[in-house]
């Protein structure tokens, strides 16, 4: 509070900044130490920002655990909480494809890899204050990430902790001085920066109990929480003490909760909202909005969310890889994208396909995987495999497919059941409420399931360790293969991108051949927004572009 600049001075600084290239602070953080590539920020598409205005944003459902991003794994929390926080580093808001090359400074103004990617040294910004006026220091960083990785000496504990495994490779976190933090790793892991850049990795204040984030939000971010009207809206107001000069542009953001999907997009079409919600504007919705003539701009982007089939590998019949492969072969992936998503999805294995993602398999590799080639041949092979496993017209394979009682899941499951029918598998559908679904899956009281997986970052480490590693809590199928584990570790420490890519491709092929968790397709989004919204660039990943620091309204 003592250091608050008079408003006039702030305005002058702001105007001065507008004249020059934006993101001056981003350039300062370039190429220190052995940073793999340039960390320069991209130019803003609309640099001459105007100040003021309230952004009206669509929101799908009310917050699940308040603003405690670390305690959830849902975009419904991340999206409206990101403006309150900062990360150590973040993905360049203006670059839709995310990679190590697009990681830019946030609270860490620069960083340096040392000892051949064994130690990550981060130099923190000075004069940053929490929304309650307390200074931000390296203690807060150590506190946050010790809490997330559940270090033995962590000061506090999250009551729900979904991303502990992201930091499994961190040995210790050292607060060297108030403005320097060092992450000491067990082995080299260049991907650590990716995880730190995700919207899932905000820095929490050490002086505020975690429980308070369920109703309040104390961050360092560009916006302060103004009011959370339960079930109605979440409203932020600009942080006048924000560390980035001249930012944010907006006076505030209001996330309006609209539960009914038809009403949600009717409101956008009628101009009651300025922007959509990440991942919500499917192709049919975008087509309709375009046809309606509403004044909206559309950006087709990937979501880094895939639809996948989970099977209980520990129990018959899915302990037999032939049965699993038959299931994977039976579902025609291209028909899936066309029917379930009206063309608003793309086929791909366990990493998001190009051009949306960096690691996806090439088309020619995909064609050889189960379910991607000619549908008739695939279905014939599926019948053959089933016969080898002892199933046929005399002894039909009967399975129960579970899913959550939400339309997108049910459509997905209905389609798969119909495909399975064509190879002689009788599948019945069991719908359960959200409250029951995860307990069933965690207790492995399911046979098959229609599942959605959103990946916080487009990175092999973030995906494989979370969803395919032996013993990970989110590895619902219990797929566990020693060889694959070795391959995952090998690619993780590979510093040369050229060598890492083929390793990752090999893992993806192996996972599909084993039908570990057959991927049905990757969802696309069309993110509609009003033309007066500037500098909001949707990424090919729903979780990482919600900061709103650069967004302004041209009204």
């Amino acid at each position, binding site marked *: 509070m003592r250091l608050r600049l008079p408003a006039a001075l702030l305005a002058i600084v702001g105007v001065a900044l507008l004249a020059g290239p934006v993101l001056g602070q981003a350039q300062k953080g370039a190429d220190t130490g052995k940073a793999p590539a340039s960390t320069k920020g991209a130019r803003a598409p609309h640099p001459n920002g105007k100040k003021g205005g309230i952004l009206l944003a669509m929101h799908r459902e009310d917050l699940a*655990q308040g603003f405690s991003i670390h305690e959830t794994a849902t975009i419904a929390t991340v999206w409206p909480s990101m403006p309150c926080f900062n990360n150590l580093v973040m993905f360049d808001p203006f670059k839709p494809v995310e990679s190590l090359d697009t990681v830019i400074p946030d609270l860490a103004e620069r960083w340096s890899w040392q000892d051949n990617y064994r130690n990550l040294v981060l130099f923190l910004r000075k004069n940053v204050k929490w929304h309650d006026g307390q200074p931000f220091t390296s203690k807060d960083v150590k506190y946050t990430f010790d809490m997330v990785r559940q270090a033995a000496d962590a000061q506090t504990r999250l009551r729900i902790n979904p991303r502990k495994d992201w930091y499994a490779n961190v040995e210790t976190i050292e607060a060297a001085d108030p403005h320097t933090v060092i992450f000491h790793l067990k082995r080299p892991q260049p991907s650590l920066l990716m995880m730190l850049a995700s919207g899932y990795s905000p820095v929490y204040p050490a002086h505020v109990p975690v*429980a308070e984030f369920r109703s309040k939000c104390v961050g360092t971010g560009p916006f302060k929480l103004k009011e959370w009207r339960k079930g109605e809206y979440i409203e932020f107001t600009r942080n006048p003490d924000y560390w980035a000069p001249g930012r944010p542009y907006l006076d505030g953001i209001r996330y309006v909760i609209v539960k*009914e999907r038809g*009403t949600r997009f009717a409101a956008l079409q009628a101009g009651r909202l300025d922007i959509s919600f990440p991942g919500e504007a499917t192709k049919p919705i975008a087509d309709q909005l375009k046809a309606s003539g509403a004044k909206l701009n559309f950006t087709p982007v990937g979501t880094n969310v895939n639809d996948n089939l989970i099977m209980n590998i520990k129990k018959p019949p899915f302990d037999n890889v032939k049965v699993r492969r038959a299931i994977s072969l039976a579902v025609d992936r291209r028909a899936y994208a066309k029917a379930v998503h009206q063309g608003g999805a793309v086929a791909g294995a366990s990493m998001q396909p190009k051009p949306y993602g960096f690691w996806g398999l090439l088309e020619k590799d995909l064609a050889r995987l189960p379910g991607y080639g000619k549908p008739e041949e695939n279905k014939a092979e599926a019948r053959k495999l089933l016969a080898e496993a002892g199933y046929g017209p005399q002894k039909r394979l009967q399975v129960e497919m579970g899913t959550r009682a939400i339309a997108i899941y049910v459509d997905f499951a209905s389609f798969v059941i119909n495909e399975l029918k064509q190879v002689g598998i009788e599948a019945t559908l069991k719908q359960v409420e959200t409250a029951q679904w995860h307990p069933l899956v*965690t207790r492995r009281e399911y046979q098959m399931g229609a599942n959605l997986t959103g990946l916080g970052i487009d990175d092999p480490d973030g995906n494989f360790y979370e969803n395919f590693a032996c013993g990970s809590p989110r590895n619902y199928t219990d797929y566990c293969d020693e060889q694959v584990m070795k391959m995952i570790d090998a690619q993780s420490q590979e510093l040369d991108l050229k060598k890492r890519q083929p390793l990752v491709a090999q893992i993806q092929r192996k996972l599909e051949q084993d039908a570990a968790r057959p991927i049905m397709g990757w969802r696309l989004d069309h993110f509609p927004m009003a033309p007066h919204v500037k500098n909001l660039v949707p990424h090919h990943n729903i979780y990482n572009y919600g900061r709103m620091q650069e967004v302004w309204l041209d009204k």
Partner: protein
Amino acid sequence: MSVVIFVLMRLAPGDIVDVLFAAAGYVNESDKQFLMKELGIDKPIWAQYVDWLRGLAAGDLGKSYRYDQSAWEVIGPLVPVTVELAALATIFSILFGVPAGILSAVRQDTTLDYVLRVVSLAGLSLPSFWLGMVIILGLVAWAGWIPAVTYVSPREDLAGHLVQFLLPAAAVGYRSSALLMRITRSAMLEVLREDYVRTAWAKGQNGRAVIWRHALKNAILPVVTVIGIEFAFLIGGLVVTETVFNLPGVARFLVEAILWRDYPIVQNLVLFIAVVVVLSNLLVDLLYGWLDPRVRYSS
């Protein structure tokens, strides 16, 4: 009744902790036990019930599991929205239902009567969620406009507020007015057959006077009863209308709380609805006494 709801909710599979973990995509059994203890849902059902009653007696409604906030703070702002919507719908239904019913009774078995009866039955047959959906989607398709999706305070913008409430009130009020029309019609028919009305007709009194002075006065009792029942019904029955028109009311929140297994919110909302039912019944009884001297004398 509170016992019934209390037990039913807790018999439902899954609990708030499962929902919270669902948002994180996994469940950890030991963490789950810890959380259940923190929220106090590891205790036996009867103990939780006693706790709730004890709190209630002290004016404490308990804490929402989901929001970590007192149930009253969560529920409080929702109440006026629903009450206003229900009241507007009731007014709408009285304005349309009662005159239509009278007209239909007086013109019994004419074309007008048949048309009114079919229109009113149609009102009872249209699913309200469908009607609301068609209104919103139709409006945006043809006019490119819909009412505000965030609550507009009447103090800030009275016109906007009215626009926001009148559409849903009309959508629901159609159903209620259908009900009122039917009850008014049959009550009027019965009264019109009574001797004293016939006498009045026979004495050559003006038709309108007969209807208003004699018939309606006596037919009003069952109509008032139904208005009371209907108002109480609307308080809890607006689930889908509130959802489709995105109004932050009680009913929509109740469904949400049920899906979230947020027991304190469910219990208190159900209790609130029950209180409204009792109060409106009481009000109807009082109105009875005022409208019909016989009831006053007998009691």
